[in-house]
Every structure is written in structure tokens, then in C-alpha cells.
């Protein structure tokens, strides 16, 4: 479960959707309705967040320093200071929606059939983001496209807020957080690799925050902490490897293959759920 979550969290294919569908398909014993399921997932997410913190450790040091410098001086002089404020702007909508809506949404759509259904929505969203990007780039030469790409530090605050709000869609099992944020980044004018970097940076505080809030529930529910902690470590290892792979892949790769994957996963899941359960 840790390997599955860590690998699928950063790929634009919805880790929550996989966490709901795969255990049902493989007849794993724990149920999504158990009180320890969400804290367990959050613990796995903490493994992912730790992997991201390690991957971007130098940038996070600069971002945290930049945040305090900009907050106290009231000015953004460097890229790190601006990026810190963009991440704060992008995190707030997801945090507000998460606190007030997350549990209600997850309770509404906890079945594997619904998660499988949202996988196809995720696939369509991915194709939509790529189509919008292609339409914007149509008619311009490769050099013009390269010149038009922005760094994550240069996108507008409105774009950061919209990309951040898109994260709330990931409360629906089957919709990928990284898929919608990378897609949002593409629409904001970022190249794929830069959109992935912004997505991973944006995900870190939300995942960490959710972990800090939910982890105490693990200690109250009498769950096998050793196994859960091992899951978190595996999740972190898988997430680190996934992030390294994706950052390399997005140098020239596109989102479309993941859209096709979601559609294929939807079809296969639906068939297996229908005939095997």
C-alpha cells in the first residue's frame, strides 16, 4: 500500500483513487470506512511529503527564508521571496476547502465504483489541459514557445490561487492532485517540467499540514503503528523515485499518456469490480 501510494501520489493518476480501488480488487482486509483508513493514508502522505522535502531541500530553505524576509520587509525582492508568497497564495484555497469539505466529499464518494468513475474524469481533464496548452502554442515557432514559457516564480498570484484551488478537486477519489496542478501550471504558461516542480512544491505544505492534523488519530485508534510506519517509509522511497522520474520525463514528455492510462484503468477496474467482486 505504501509503495502504491508513494508511486501514484506524484504521477497524475490519483493516489486516492488507487488507494480505494486496488485494495477492493485485491481483497485486502482493511476497509475504507474504518476510522484508521484516512489517518493511515495521511501517514503515507507524510512519507511522500518527506521525500519531496528531501528532493527540494535547498529550495525549501530558500523559500522559508524568503517567506520571513518578504513578510517582515513587506517587499518581494528575490525569486525565492516571490515563490514563497505564491505558494502561500496557492495553499490557502486548498486548505480552506480541505478543512471544510474534505471529509464530507470523501464520505460521499468512498466506493471503488465512484473512484473508478472519477478516473475517467481525470483522464478527460488531462486531455483538456493539454488541448488548451496546444491551442495557446499553435502558430508560434519553437523559439517563440521557449521564450513564452515562464518560471514558476514569475506566474501571477491569481494563477497561483487558481492552481491551488484546483487541488481541492483531488478530494474526489480518482482526481489527481498533481494532474490538476500540473495542468493548471501549463495553462498559467509554465513548461511541463516547471509545472511539475510548482505542483510538487505546492503539494508539500498541504500534505504536511494534513499529516500533522490527522496523525494523532493513529495513536488513539490502536492500529499497528510499526506496519503503518513501514508503509510511510516505503511511500517516501517510491515518491522520491517517482518525482525524480517525472522531472526527467517532463523535460520532453507530455501529460497525454497518463490520460490514456486513466481511461484504461477505469475500463479495467470497472470490468474487474463487476466480474470479480
Amino acid at each position, binding site marked *: 500500500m505504501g509503495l502504491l501510494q508513494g508511486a501514484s501520489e506524484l504521477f497524475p493518476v490519483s493516489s486516492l483513487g488507487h488507494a480505494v480501488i486496488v485494495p477492493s480488487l485485491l481483497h485486502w482486509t482493511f476497509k475504507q470506512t474504518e476510522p484508521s483508513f484516512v489517518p493511515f493514508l495521511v501517514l503515507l502522505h507524510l512519507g511522500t511529503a518527506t521525500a519531496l522535502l528531501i528532493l527540494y531541500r535547498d529550495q525549501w530553505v530558500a523559500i522559508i527564508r524568503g517567506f520571513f524576509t518578504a*513578510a517582515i520587509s513587506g517587499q518581494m525582492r528575490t525569486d525565492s521571496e516571490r515563490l514563497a508568497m505564491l505558494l502561500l497564495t496557492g495553499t*490557502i484555497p486548498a486548505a480552506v476547502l480541505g478543512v471544510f469539505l474534505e471529509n464530507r466529499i470523501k464520505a460521499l464518494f468512498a466506493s471503488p465504483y465512484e473512484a473508478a468513475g472519477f478516473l475517467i474524469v481525470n483522464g478527460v481533464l488531462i486531455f483538456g489541459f493539454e488541448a488548451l496548452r496546444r491551442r495557446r502554442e499553435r502558430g508560434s515557432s519553437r523559439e517563440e514557445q521557449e521564450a513564452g514559457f515562464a518560471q514558476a516564480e514569475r506566474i501571477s498570484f491569481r494563477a497561483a490561487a487558481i492552481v491551488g484551488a484546483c487541488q481541492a478537486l483531488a478530494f474526489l477519489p480518482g482526481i489527481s492532485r498533481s494532474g490538476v496542478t500540473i495542468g493548471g501550471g501549463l495553462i498559467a504558461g509554465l513548461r511541463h517540467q516547471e509545472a511539475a516542480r510548482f505542483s510538487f512544491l505546492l503539494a508539500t505544505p498541504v500534505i504536511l*499540514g494534513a499529516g500533522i492534523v490527522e496523525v494523532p488519530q493513529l495513536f488513539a485508534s490502536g492500529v499497528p503503528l510499526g506496519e503503518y510506519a513501514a508503509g510511510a517509509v516505503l511511500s517516501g522511497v517510491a515518491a522520491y523515485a517517482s518525482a525524480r522520474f517525472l522531472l526527467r520525463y517532463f523535460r520532453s514528455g507530455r501529460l497525454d499518456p497518463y490520460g490514456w492510462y486513466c481511461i484504461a484503468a477505469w475500463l479495467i477496474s470497472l470490468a474487474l469490480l463487476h466480474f470479480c467482486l
Partner: protein
Amino acid sequence: MKSNSVAVVLGVLGVIFVIVAVLYAVGGVLPTFTASPVEGFHLKHTILFAVLALASFVGANMTRIKTV
């Protein structure tokens, strides 16, 4: 966008968020707005409104017109 009016609004919002965060921390005061029917200390909401307060004060400091 530099504007003292926006800075004042953000500052006032920040104060409101601090008050709401304290009310959630004290517990039992705002059960209507929480997802949980249980009254008491709401860690999630307390942290959220503390972060919103911080963001509002930072925003206020960013948008105010500085006098040299």
C-alpha cells in the same frame, strides 16, 4: 497592488481570523461551522484560521504604501 485601504481591510481580516482561531481553540463556541458534531478543541480549524490570520497580516504589510 499598493493601497493603504486594502492593507487596512487585510489587517482587520487578520484580527477577525485571530479571534476565530482563538474561539476554535477554546472550543464549543463555534460548533455550527465545524464538520464534527463534537464540541471542544478543533485543531484543524484553529490551525487554518491562524494561517489565514498570518496570511492576512503578511498581505497587509505587502500592500501598504511604505513611507521612507
